[in-house]
């Protein structure tokens, strides 16, 4: 049965009005032609979309074979009785199963809701990061390149913000997989702030922690040497996409929501090449998973990080003199 709108709208093409609103003459001509042919005298039924999709569903390729179906759950009390209380709380495998099971049962409307979109924005970075493993293995190249600009993102955010920490953790997973496959690790080019006293104690403590616990290759670039990179923060995922920030966000949330994206493969490849050449401007801090001798002598304390930073900055100042 077709449902026809009872309140029929009278449609007409108003050339002057459309031109005033900025529509192109070519499009207005097309619309006028449609009107002349009498095409606006009849409108689709209100339920046409529903009827069409209902007819198309059997022909749509439904590939659900790879979805993980969770096993019949054991009673919680039985599991708790066997489990020692250990940290971390989350078991990634069961978490993954739960995630896919929830996704499978989720109504379409919820998947297009603002809440799901919000959740996805914050999960997107780590998902994008994990998907670079295939690129790294197949191309024998670094999975992720980062330009971590301390002038745009507060170093302390990497320590206390869950979104940033989750992304950093995803990078460590990718590095482990890259190392096991014998491919180069993720590279991070850090643009330092102009002066040492621009950093807070918390910033320096976080930097120390990341150097001690991280695995990727790291270079530090003094602010004055960074040239046009002074005002950019970039993450390059394989050869698939670049995320960039060009303005300083006020908060970690604003940072994660404010990334701009480009997926032009040609541009991504060129940016990868350009970023790799940054090694010439920078001091190496960690390579192949090992801290440089100077870095190794300084990490472990905030004072040490301050010393290391001073060293990199003064090297630049000495060159400038």
């Amino acid at each position, binding site marked *: 049965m077709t449902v026809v709108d009872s309140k029929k*709208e009278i*449609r007409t093409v108003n050339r002057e009005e459309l031109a005033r609103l900025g529509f192109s003459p070519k*499009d207005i001509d097309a619309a006028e032609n449609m009107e002349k042919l009498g095409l606006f005298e009849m*409108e689709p039924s209100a339920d046409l979309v529903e009827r*069409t999709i209902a007819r198309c569903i059997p*022909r749509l390729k439904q590939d659900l074979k790879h979805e993980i179906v969770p096993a019949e759950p054991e009673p919680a009390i039985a599991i708790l009785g066997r489990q020692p209380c250990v940290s971390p709380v989350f078991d990634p495998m069961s978490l993954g199963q739960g995630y896919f099971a929830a996704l499978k049962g989720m109504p379409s409307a919820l998947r297009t809701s603002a809440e799901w979109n919000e959740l996805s924005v914050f999960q997107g*970075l780590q998902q994008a990061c994990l998907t670079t493993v295939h690129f790294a293995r197949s191309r024998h190249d670094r999975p992720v390149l980062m330009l971590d600009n301390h002038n745009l993102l507060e170093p302390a955010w990497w320590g206390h913000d869950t979104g940033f920490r989750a992304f950093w953790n995803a990078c460590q997973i990718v590095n482990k997989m890259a190392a096991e496959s014998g491919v180069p690790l993720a590279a991070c080019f850090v643009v330092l702030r102009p002066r040492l006293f621009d950093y807070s104690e918390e910033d320096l403590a976080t930097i120390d922690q990341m150097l001690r616990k991280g695995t990727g290759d790291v270079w530090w670039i003094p602010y004055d040497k960074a040239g046009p990179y002074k005002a950019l923060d970039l993450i390059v995922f394989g050869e698939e996409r670049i995320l960039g920030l060009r303005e300083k966000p006020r908060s970690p949330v604003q940072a994660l929501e404010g990334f701009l994206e480009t997926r032009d493969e040609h541009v991504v490849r060129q940016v990868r090449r350009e970023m790799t050449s940054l090694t010439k401007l920078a001091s190496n801090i960690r390579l192949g998973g090992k801290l440089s001798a100077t870095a190794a002598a300084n990490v472990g304390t905030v004072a040490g990080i301050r010393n290391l930073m001073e060293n990199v900055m003064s090297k630049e100042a000495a060159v400038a003199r």
Partner: protein
Amino acid sequence: MGLLESISRWRPWKARAKVDGIPFEELQNRYSEDANATYKEFIRRLHQLIFYAASEYLERTKGRRRQEEIENIVIGIFEEFSPQFAIGSPDKILVRFAQVIRNQLDDKAFRVIAALFYKQIPIYHLSDEGERRLLAAVYEEGLSTPMKVLADRFKMTVKDVENGLTKANSNLCSVMQRDFESGELKEMTEGYLS
């Protein structure tokens, strides 16, 4: 470094933007996640223009225009395209769909809607959701929707609708230059846009 400054295709990072706001060439990526919702969105965006093309075709070839007959053709076109939706270059999704329209109707019927049909590609690159929804609605309905009707539908004043459309059209020109490389739009639209 000139390269970084010249990146022209920056878009807001929305790892999973809502399906009704993503560009046509990205719809295919959503297909594996939720085939029905994605294809339904594709149908929603285009069914009205296809309805007009089918109506023109029936009138010209059979000298009659019946609602049910037109709608059966519309359904048949989407049905024929459904197995192909996820196959092929995402950038050419509308070109592939146009071929199906020509198969079921003919080139003349497609030409009637072609300009408005292909304009949908850059429209879904507009970053302002309000502007995008307004302009998409107007193009879906053949530029024939009275401002008052749009105002009621979007719960806006007529003045706001007019201002929104003016801004949307102005931004659309920038989007067409900024988001697409030279010749790219031409290829994605069989030369209808360049």
